[in-house]
């Protein structure tokens, strides 16, 4: 713990954690390699999805991390709680994405503590956009490409759920109903589109149970044709990570609930 340089008068933007870090000599981004960067095989994480349901937003991700045709890890967590009402789900390189999530989490707490108020939803959405833009040099060289989803809950709106997807450069797109990212996302998007257009109920009218069931089936379908997507592994009890964001905050759907919903099928 070093106090050198801790002079708050020098702060340019009140409550900005990234700036506070650089003021204290902490850099969280490695330097850009000059060449040969895209030669090595990076670990990748896929597939994530999110949609609005009755109580808020459901956000889910499979558990597989791959590097080329190798399965690196079958229990990766790609759905990361950032604060009590926001979740970031990651598709892309976990090394970069997890660090982005960590910066984001610390930034929100830092803002709340220093400014003594919660950061606005728009401010939070921008913060992730800025991290992606700062990473663009790497992405251009083919390293550390991250394409996240961000979901949060805002009381000010009629349906409190807010859902965004991003492109590699950091543009944020707010969506009304659903979003998906990662290599298995074409199948997932097709299912969610079909369900929202011609399903028994619109997505936003579904109960939590119905929503969880749909998410599990969509990830299973993606895993059917995409080897980089894990789906449900019942023998080893590996289920996707599914979180809900409602007025009450972020909740993780327990493995037990996932197992029982998966076995019973769509109610």
């Amino acid at each position, binding site marked *: *713990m070093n106090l050198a340089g801790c002079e708050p008068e020098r702060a340019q933007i009140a409550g900005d954690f990234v700036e506070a870090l650089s003021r204290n000599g*902490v850099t969280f981004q490695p330097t850009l390699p000059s060449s040969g960067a895209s030669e090595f095989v990076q670990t990748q994480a896929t597939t994530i999805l999110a949609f609005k349901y009755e109580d808020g937003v459901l956000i889910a991700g499979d558990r597989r991390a791959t590097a080329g045709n190798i399965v690196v890890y079958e229990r990766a967590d790609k759905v990361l709680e950032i604060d009590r009402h926001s979740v970031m789900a990651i598709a892309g390189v976990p090394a970069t994405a997890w660090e982005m999530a960590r910066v984001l989490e*610390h930034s929100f707490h830092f803002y709340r*503590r220093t400014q003594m108020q919660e950061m606005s939803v728009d401010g939070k959405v921008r913060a992730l956009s800025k991290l992606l833009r700062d990473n663009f040099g790497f992405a251009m060289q083919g390293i550390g490409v991250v394409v996240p989803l961000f979901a949060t809950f805002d009381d000010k709106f009629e349906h409190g759920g807010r859902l965004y997807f991003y492109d590699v450069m950091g543009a944020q797109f707010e969506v009304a109903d659903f979003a998906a990212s990662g290599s298995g996302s074409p199948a997932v998007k097709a299912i969610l589109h079909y369900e929202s257009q011609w399903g028994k109920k619109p997505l936003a009218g579904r109960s939590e149970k119905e929503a969880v069931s749909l998410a599990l089936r969509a990830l299973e379908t993606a895993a059917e044709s995409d080897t980089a997507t894990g789906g449900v592994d019942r023998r080893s009890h590996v289920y996707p990570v599914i979180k809900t964001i409602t007025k009450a905050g972020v909740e993780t759907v327990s493995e037990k609930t996932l197992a029982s919903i998966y076995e019973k099928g769509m109610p």
Partner: protein
Amino acid sequence: MTDEPYRYVEAMANRREYVENQLATGSPIVALSYDGGVLFLTVGPERQKVFEIYDRIALGALGHPGDIERLRMIAIEVASTEGFTRSPADVSLRRLTSYSFSPMLKNAFEQVYGPPLLARLLFAELGWKHEPDLFVRLDFDGSLQTSGVGVAREPFGVLAGTRRAMNEMHDFLKTKDLSEPKLSAALELAAQAWGVGTYYSRGEDHREKPTDESISGVLKDALKRNVFEAAVLECGAPEHHAYRPLDSSEVEAVTARYRGSD
């Protein structure tokens, strides 16, 4: 000046007297362990005097608002930087106060040509599971007083404008049964301790300890123009959210007791 020892000593004494005079009228702050965590309590106009610092650390401060703000920002920045580069579990109040704050405050106080920091700080850290909570008081000259170590650790910390008031508040709480009181009992005890501190802060040369009536008289008088400000560090709260200011309904019972018509 430093090559003339007498003038240096004189300058420091003057400086100390000046800072102590500036702080003397500050409203006391009490921090107390209760069965669900740590309670902070003070009385004042709407200005906030109790703050969240990190996951398990809170701060109560008296002095100049500008200096309090500066110190509060430094505390958050140091804790957050440490929590980010290592992990939140590595942030500890002991290290924050003894390695960062104490030397910095001492330095600021002894730089005779710079303005001194007009502030006195009371930090509290929520203990992990079965560990007791820790209270640390830091004075403007960097001197540091903790609530003790091991089993002898006192479950409270006090802060006031004068040394006498702090000693009396400490002695008052020492005589009370502080074995994990409920929040309501802790609020009442903290309010009384605040009353004791204020009784002695007002400058009169009290020879006698205040009676229960004079304590409640002080509180009734203060609450005519001011409000209770209270906050807690709660055990079992969601991660990163142990700190929570109490709203007025939660301190209503103790407010009602001292808001009588007499």
